[in-house]
């Protein structure tokens, strides 16, 4: 299998962005490898290790499935009614590869609109992708925020 091109990686990330902005969360989950994870480090420790340090989010796949199941419930009040989100993913770079695993970096800006507030989240994606017969899959999907704090954003209740 040849190494995916940047254009193919971009297509994958743009598809992902669309799934998230349209809240197609079950389809989004299918983009993860079985050993995948979704992480957001603390804003004062962007290089943290989730086994040793406090994170904002550090989901293994079972937890991430629980997160999606929760977000689909009307009782997940923070996202019911749902936020509208619009995300721009860019500056996508293939930083290295080893076997079927790719190290990819990208930048993001996500606008979240809820309760008459528009909050902005900016940062970078630190990604490990696996190239499989079925297409690319996330092994590590880490969103590293540039924010000093979630102020005034307050929370990350949608998928960032």
């Amino acid at each position, binding site marked *: 299998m040849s190494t995916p091109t940047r254009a193919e990686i971009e297509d994958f990330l743009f598809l992902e962005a669309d799934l998230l902005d349209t809240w197609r969360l079950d389809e989004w989950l299918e983009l993860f490898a079985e050993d995948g994870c979704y992480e*957001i*480090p*603390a*804003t*004062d*420790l962007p290089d*943290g290790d*989730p*086994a*040793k*340090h*406090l*994170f*904002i*989010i*550090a989901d293994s796949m*079972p*937890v991430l499935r*629980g*997160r999606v*199941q*929760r977000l689909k*419930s009307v*009782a*997940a*009040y*923070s*996202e019911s009614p749902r936020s509208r989100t619009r995300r721009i993913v860019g500056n996508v770079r293939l930083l290295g590869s080893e076997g079927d695993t790719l190290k990819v970096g990208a930048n993001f800006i996500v606008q979240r609109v809820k*309760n008459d*507030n528009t909050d902005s989240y900016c940062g970078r994606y630190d990604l490990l992708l696996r190239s499989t017969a079925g297409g690319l899959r996330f092994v590590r999907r880490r969103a590293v925020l540039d924010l*000093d*704090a*979630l*102020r*005034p*954003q*307050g*929370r*990350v*209740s949608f998928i960032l």
Partner: protein
Amino acid sequence: MHGFESNTGAFAGLLRDDPATGVFRVHRRAMVEQAVFDAEMRAIFDHAWLYLGHESEVPNAGDFRARSLAGRPLLLCRGEDGEVRAFLNVCPHRGTVVCRERQGNTKSFTCFYHSWTFRLNGERLPLPNDEAYSDGAKPDPKESGLKLVPRQANYRGFIFISFDADASSIEDYLAGARIYLDAVADQGENGMEVIAGSQLYSARGNWKLLVENTIDFLHTVPVHQTYFKFLRDFGTDLSSGVSGRGYDLGNGHAVVAFKAGWGRPVARWEPSWGEAEKSRLADLRVQVVKRVGEERAKLIADTDRNLCLFPNLLINDIMATVLRQANPVAPGYMEITQWALAPKGEDPASRARRLHAFNTFLGPGGFATPDDIEAFEGCQRGFGAWRELGWSDYSRGYRTEVDGPEDKIRSDHELQIRAFYRRWHELISAGMAS
């Protein structure tokens, strides 16, 4: 003198506290009005003991943390003599914030504006070109160093400060809350530490909403049903429900002590953790008993506790130990900071499980806290109608609180919230903290 004192009569009407009818209500003007907010700052935050940080966050000489509380930029720093000091992070010369890094290690602090430089103990180094000052105007080296916060106390590793030089001792201030703070401090054989990484977030709501929410049990089932479902799906048995009650600990401090079905890292096993963990947790509990005796071990190891240290430090000692602080910024906006506290030298598997429990429940990205924030923000929007719909109710269990019997006081009563608001009201009405 305090400029707002002429207004204090107006604040007397913010609380209805009637033991005869069992009615306890707080007026929503207290959540929206700038005058009330200003009175809180002057009457409460200028005088109370406030939590600034934990000594484990500055383990080595030169380690520092820059924080802010009640509008003041502050600097927590360990000196070459090993002492931890809390300074106002403000240059005495022209008022610039001196240390502009959030954390780090340094030999000295230099204000970039005019190069005034300070040792770790706050002393100012000689000024360059100071012959331009007349003798009477030359800044006195002793008086022009970094200014210490008027009062500072290290209670078992927790660094508290007060802006009131006449504040009572921290031990007197903590009153009945002391044993509950001890129950947190005593969990580690080698002491406790704050785990690296802070959850820094906020809510568009009044700071008191976070305080009352943390010690409010009535909201947990309706608001957090999705979290409890997640726990059940992961094998935690919650069928026994929650049993417990609130206590008024004096000086506005309060606690709800209870038992729930989840496990506690120190030290209450739950079946989903597996049999190997069962014996390890049993050993851990034996160590706690050896250290503090069976009676206190029951409180430390077996009991879940949500503690409010008046005015704004909240400690949830549940499936993880959370230090949470509400920092008022405006009537309708607060900053929230929370840290994970754990025993020093905890084994890596327990540490990882503790962090997992913390992240899934308690943070701004967790399965519960975002829904609390949604509730605060919904309240704050609703408070816009305070002129038409003025009173928030905290009357549950008030007659039981007055008449007893003691054993009928329940965790979903509101005794603990009343304890907080009584002290809050006493202070803003008097215009001065004791």
